[in-house]
């Protein structure tokens, strides 16, 4: 998988399809970090593990670079979905972005509770089946029980918040500047823990129909709040009620935004005699 990815990346660079390839690099002191590969030789240091979400970094790079700058991103399923959401939200020019899709391992999928551990455009690696988060013990622990128990459980969890904004900063979809979380109309400023209901639920709900379940928020949380679980319920509803899933293709907008109004099927064919009749009449 690694070799294949390297080859694809090398090809892209050699054929000048993109100005640079964005991925993970391991340097001579085997320190791993994100890196822009600009010459094919550098690709020797390319690595794919660990799971390191690059979508937001890639977006920032593209935003701060000239119009024609093309970037190839080595991305996992969640990265790709995030990038697609960003295209949808006009943050990235579609044509400036290439993706090199790599599949996640079964273990990784299990860790992330990922129901789609592979990109739509898969270039390297084998698709593995996703896991159903609702079958997972960790999740069930938070979702079972009556309101009272769940409330207690979540309140205790969220009260740990130290308001580092890491969940927001690391979220690939959170692009607003200014952000409502910094507005004291909605969230009281300068107190720790952050106001639980407002800070966390506003954040969670703003992502309701755009969350790609990459888990960046959860990984960035210093106090181990399972923020991803907040989204699962809403993602489920969207999938079951409207058959919508965020980040699958740039065209479909979220159903929550439209006032679902069915248009007639225009391709109904009628024998168009009425006009011929007219013709006859005029003659």
């Amino acid at each position, binding site marked *: 998988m690694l070799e294949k990815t390297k080859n694809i990346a090398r090809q892209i660079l050699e054929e000048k399809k993109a100005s640079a390839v964005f991925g993970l690099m391991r340097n001579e002191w085997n320190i791993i970090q994100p890196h822009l590969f600009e010459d094919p030789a550098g690709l020797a240091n390319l690595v794919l593990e660990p799971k390191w979400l690059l979508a937001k970094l890639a977006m920032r790079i593209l935003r701060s670079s000239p119009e024609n700058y093309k970037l190839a991103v080595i991305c996992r399923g969640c990265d790709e979905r995030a990038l697609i959401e960003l295209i949808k939200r*006009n943050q990235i020019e579609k044509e400036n972005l290439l993706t090199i899709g790599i599949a996640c391992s079964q273990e990784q999928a299990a860790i992330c509770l990922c129901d789609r551990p592979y990109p739509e455009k898969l270039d390297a690696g084998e698709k593995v089946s996703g896991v159903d988060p609702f079958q997972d013990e960790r999740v069930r622990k938070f979702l079972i029980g009556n309101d009272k128990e769940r409330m207690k459980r979540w309140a205790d969890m969220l009260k740990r918040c130290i308001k580092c904004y890491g969940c927001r900063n690391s979220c690939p979809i959170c*692009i*607003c500047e*200014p952000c*409502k979380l910094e507005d004291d*109309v909605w969230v009281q400023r300068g107190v720790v823990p952050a106001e639980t209901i407002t800070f966390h639920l506003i954040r969670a709900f703003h992502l309701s129909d755009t969350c790609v379940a990459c888990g960046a928020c959860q990984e960035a949380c210093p106090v181990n709040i399972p923020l991803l679980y907040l989204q699962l319920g809403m993602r489920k509803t969207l999938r079951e009620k409207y058959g919508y899933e965020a980040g699958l293709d740039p065209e479909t*907008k979220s159903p929550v935004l*439209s*006032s679902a109004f*069915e248009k007639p099927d225009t391709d109904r064919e009628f024998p168009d005699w009425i006009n011929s009749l007219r013709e006859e009449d005029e003659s």
Partner: protein
Amino acid sequence: MANISVFLCKCFGEIDNTINFDFLREELSKDPSVVLISIVDSLCLETDIEKTVSQIRESNSDKVLIAACSTLSRGNLVIESLIKEGVERHKIGLVDIREGCAWIHGDNPEDASKKAKDLINMGIAALQHKDMSDDMSVTVHPNALIIGAGPAGLAAAMSLARTGFKVNLLERSKVPGGMLKLISRCYPDNDDASNKLGPYLREVENNPLITFYPQSKITSVEGDTGNFTVHFSFQEKDSFIQAGVIIVATGAKIFFPTGLYGYGEIKNVINQMEFERQSLNGSLETKKPVFIQCVGARNRERPYCSTICCPISLKNASRIAEDIPGASVFILHRGIMTPGNTLEKYYRDTLSSGVQFIRFEEEQPPRIIGSDYVEAVEVYDAITGITRKIETDLVVLSTPLVPNNDNVQLAEMLDIEVDRYGFFSEIYPMHPLETKTDGIFICGSARWPVSSDHSILQGKAAAMKAVSYLRQSKIAASTLSRVPGLKSGHARVVPESCTGCGNCVAACPFDACHIEKLEGRYISIVNMMKCKACGSCVSVCPNGTMQIPEHNYRMVGEMIKMAF
């Protein structure tokens, strides 16, 4: 912090017999931003208004809060008269402490007073942040454009021209008249169609204000309310027209039921349109016609009733029964639809003229007997429960009107709605001729199958609606409110903080927002002429950049904080 003067209305005891005004005064005096507390018996009489205004002038207050009855009572009147006196709309706040408090908590004065206090505090908090949205106005182009020269279009054209406006009348075919040209007589008065059409056709010919464009097809539409530019091909040449209003009168067309009852294969199975044609050119000869109703209508595919087929059948059937001696005429129906007194009479007359009616069920449709020529029709009489075999020499199928194929494309060009079948539709039942875009009206069978009379009626109505736009030289966005009362404002974007995510575009029910690329980043632009200030965009805007200044999020937030 704006200085606010508060006016508390006792409403001659209606309010203060429940609410303790001394308590209110005491509480309000704690608020530093309140510079004047005036408790009065009434606010809504002329004398009161003068007093109020003078008091406002004296006090150095920037904004006015009125605590009285609700906007739906005389509250609005007070606001309006204050505005007449020169107080700006966004500097007036109204708190409803009568309907909203005194009258529903009469049994508990203490709580009522507390609630009144809270409500007033909410009002003050909101008023502090209340802002005024910017407005724009366009010069109205004095011409009208009418699409379709059927009865509706013609009627509209005539009325507009007679009111003195230039009218451009576009028609797809070579001559005006629409479907009315294709039929002999009209129900219910059995008048000759040409007579009905005549005056309008003459008007089109003679009235210099009306320009007729035959064989033209619309290609694209630009502009907004009051100033549309319509590009169209006129006799294969591209051309364009500017217009202040557009009336859509494209009509509908008859459904050709290929395959049903051997239609298309068997010679003596025809539909109403062909029946009309034959009777026009005198080629019609039949003694035993059988009319079958609801062919291809009121079924799964087309659940609606086309409303005009029954009267048409009655018209044609009675005509045969009367004109041709010894004729036996049958109408096989699924319930005759003849609403209104005239049509009901029409039905009874037909009955007395000897036409026989048989009711069948959708599950058991009539069966035609004969392979290349129909000798008889077999039908199960749902009322008597007897299966009858009817000798016939002509089977006439009553088919519904269906929308034109290009309705949807046209609707997209004009940015108006079509219903689920493809007819043009109003967006709110209370305003039947108006569409999503102000200044574009629909009438006649384009919006629903109707008789020629109704088409003409609607055409005239639409014309009058159009006049209400055309007669103004300039038209302000803030007045474009279809619903009674003024619009509350327009959505406003702060370009600096707009992320260009496009939620507003997706959510706006009036397509008022669109995304534009300005110096390298996308931002949302609001078209005030289209914006109706419903706030759909506000609630989906991820960072509150999109706001309605008269009802912005700060107001809501502060009100919530003050609520209890």
